[in-house]
């Protein structure tokens, strides 16, 4: 008796310790980046173009570039992802084609991001002749986050109770009316969450934009979607490894801005999910 209690206590201790360990890296990353980066943050840093070979000035073009890229990626990936998710969860039958599609999505999620970069280079930059541009980068990022959006949207759609669909159909609503009026509105929080998680991922990736859009040094705002742009993750890479004698403050400041951008997106996702969950009644 006492023996089993002791072993239970030991087990609990180790389980708790393992869980506790998860907090450590997260906490350390945040603390170090804030500690080292915060001194760099001021209005000029956020709103000015980089100066003196990126050793001074601000990171405004990189922030704007990242926002453009993320927006473009979502404009491309959300409609396609959502429509695909609706098809897969509501219409598709379990046959060979569907299984191939599902397998493709799983594989798409597993492709390393640098491969997306290469793919984007071949397809959008070279073949479509978009050149290194915001549109090439956005499309590449869009393809990268498609699986996230499809998977989370599908889960959101499938979590709408089956009984709601039956009720709607039993009242003589068509399948499409049922999807539009009952299934979609109740799946929105899940879809939004997935979208924002996708956004966060798109904002943070370096490899896919490396060959498709990112400018090494472009101290102005992009003129059009066919223009190159700076972007936060690539800028961070550049000032950390490619340019000598960049003040540590500026590097960590850039990292902090990028981290804040992604964390804010995730926070928004959490808040949306929480609000809708509270409203949920089933």
């Amino acid at each position, binding site marked *: 008796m006492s023996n089993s209690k002791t072993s239970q206590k030991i087990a609990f201790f180790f389980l708790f310790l393992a869980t506790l360990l998860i907090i450590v890296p997260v906490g350390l990353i945040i603390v170090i980046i804030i500690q080292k980066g915060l001194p760099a943050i001021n209005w000029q840093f956020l709103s000015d173009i980089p100066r003196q070979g990126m050793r001074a000035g601000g990171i405004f073009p990189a922030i704007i570039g990242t926002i453009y890229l993320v927006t473009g990626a979502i404009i491309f990936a959300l409609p396609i992802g959502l429509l695909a998710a609706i098809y897969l969860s509501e219409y598709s039958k379990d046959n060979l084609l569907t299984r191939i599609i599902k397998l493709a999505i799983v594989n798409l999620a597993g492709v390393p991001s640098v491969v997306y970069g290469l793919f984007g280079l071949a397809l959008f930059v070279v073949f479509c002749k978009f050149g290194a541009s915001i549109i090439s980068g956005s499309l590449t990022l869009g393809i990268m986050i498609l699986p996230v959006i499809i998977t989370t949207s599908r889960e959101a759609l499938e979590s709408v109770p089956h*009984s*709601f669909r*039956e009720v*709607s159909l*039993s*009242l*003589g609503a068509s399948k499409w009316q049922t999807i539009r*009026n*009952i299934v979609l509105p109740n799946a929105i929080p899940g879809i939004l969450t997935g979208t924002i998680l996708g956004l966060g991922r798109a904002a943070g990736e370096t490899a896919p934009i490396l060959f498709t859009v990112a400018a090494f040094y472009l101290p102005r705002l992009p003129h059009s979607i066919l223009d190159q742009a700076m972007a936060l993750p690539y800028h961070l890479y550049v000032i950390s490894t490619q340019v000598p004698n960049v003040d540590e403050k500026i590097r960590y400041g850039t990292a902090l801005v990028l981290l804040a951008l992604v964390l804010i997106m995730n926070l928004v996702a959490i808040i949306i999910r929480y609000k809708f969950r509270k409203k949920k*009644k089933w």
Partner: protein
Amino acid sequence: MVKFEIHDLNIWFGSLHAIKHVNMEILSNEILSVIGPANSGKTTFLRTLNRLNELATNYKITGAAELEREDIRGIEIEELRRKVGMVFALPLPLPLSVFDNVAYGVRMHGERGKKKLEEKVEEALRQAYLWEEVKDRLSESAFKLSGGQQQRLCIARTLAVGPEVILFDEPCSGLDPISTAKVEDAMVKLKEKFTVVLVTNNVKQAARVADKTAFFLSGELVELDNTDRIFTAPKDKRTDGYIRGKFG
């Protein structure tokens, strides 16, 4: 008048033969109750009449069900379901307001006029004996109503689209006796205008409200007769055994 005619109906889900060679007629302005133990095919039979079974995969049907002499598979499915409404076992309000729940089906059939919708909603709620209780709460979430009110709301929602037949699938299984009595009252009044088919696990409920009673066992229709006869002098031993509570 004969509303439904069922000819040699067979239904399979995969290898499960759920309904076996059922023949029957359902008359209008009557309550037909369908009784039988669990897994006897009652609900499957009911869901054949509005083709809701077809949502299941590997579903197969032979024979025919005719609504006013027209094979239901020949009727456009939205139109069939408008004519043949259904109230489910548990109160299943949609996550909408009381008003929007009742107006839902009407809207789906193309009615957009606010005035017309208000009329239809009020009429349906009155028919379901719910109007007085909810007339000041129309914009509240339907989930705020009590269980019994929710079930009457579901009845109103079904009535609002103007059905000819109403299928009840164990509508009182989640309700207390008082709410049950209210739903039963509503059903009895409804048969004046509609054809009512009631699947119930509660034999006493069948005895209370039904004009005719059908007894299903393992997918077969064992006996269909006037409710009085079924409960006093059933022809089949199995019917007798079931209503006396010897099995099931």
